[in-house]
């Protein structure tokens, strides 16, 4: 009976199965994602009341926080997929990890840009070396390193395994790096630094944020499913099942 519970996991490892599953699942995550994002953005821009301190300016939170959340969540997903690929030697897990990287990097850039745009009216400068922005910048380099390492190998299997090792090492290091950045920042605390931290927000302000967090997460799932299909097609190019699937 215990063996039965793991069959779904091992079935996922089969490229044709995952390909078909991804194709079927995509609309089921994509449309809810679109609804949640549009709804959440509308709620954030129009429905939520202006902030007591920051006025309308706080509304950037509705794009900054989801972007930052995504940049971190995608990295963790990438690291977990990489670990699965290394431990169980699953090719599709490596395909998932490879697909995550460009998505995560793009959201990291969005987090940095929106963070900067939030900072300018609040702090007066386009950039501050505060823990959040500094950590995001480091995360961007982690993504670029992963993609750069993969690109340095011609052989897909070696690229997979080398990149996976780097992703796992990076994932283990992210908490260490984040803690040391917070520590470093606390030493030189500028008196007027705006705290991005967890504000106690009234429900009307918090609700759009939660909606957007969920919407962005589903969006990631949808984009990932599409990219994984492309990766599988490319990796399995010689396989017979491709011909059968495409002709169907």
């Amino acid at each position, binding site marked *: 009976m215990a063996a039965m519970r793991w069959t779904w996991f091992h079935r996922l490892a089969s490229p044709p199965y995952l390909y078909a599953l991804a194709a079927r699942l995509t609309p089921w995550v994509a449309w809810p994602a679109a609804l949640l*994002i549009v709804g959440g*953005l509308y709620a954030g*821009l*129009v429905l939520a009341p*202006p902030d007591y301190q920051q*006025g*309308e*300016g706080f*509304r*950037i939170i509705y*794009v*900054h926080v*989801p*972007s930052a959340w995504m940049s971190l969540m995608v990295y963790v997903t990438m690291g977990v997929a990489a670990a699965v690929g290394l431990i169980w030697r699953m090719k599709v897990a490596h395909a998932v990890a490879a697909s995550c990287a*460009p*998505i995560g990097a*793009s*959201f990291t*850039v*969005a987090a940095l*840009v*929106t963070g900067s*745009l*939030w900072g*300018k*009216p609040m702090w007066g400068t386009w950039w501050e070396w505060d823990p959040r922005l500094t950590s995001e910048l480091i995360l961007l380099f982690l993504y670029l390193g992963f993609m750069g390492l993969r690109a340095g190998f011609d052989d897909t299997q070696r690229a997979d395994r080398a990149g996976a090792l780097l992703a796992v090492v990076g994932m283990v290091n992210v908490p260490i790096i984040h803690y040391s950045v917070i520590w470093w920042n606390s030493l030189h605390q500028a008196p007027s630094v705006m705290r991005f931290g967890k504000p106690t927000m009234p429900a009307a302000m918090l609700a759009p944020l939660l909606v957007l967090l969920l919407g962005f997460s589903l*969006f990631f799932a949808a*984009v990932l499913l*599409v*990219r994984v*299909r*492309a*990766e599988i*097609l*490319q990796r399995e*190019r*010689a396989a017979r099942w*491709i*011909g059968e699937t*495409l*002709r169907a």
Partner: protein
Amino acid sequence: MSTFLDMGGYAAFIWPAYLVTLGVLVLNIVWARGSLARALQAARRRLASPGEDS
């Protein structure tokens, strides 16, 4: 409407931020679908002329 667009004076920061984020969302969609389309195209081409694969 114009007070909405003005965003209490923060318009120059809020709208670019929202546009950049939307841009990233759109970029992801386009990029992902593009890579899938390219992969499908390449796969169909390989099926049409099977003698090329080593």
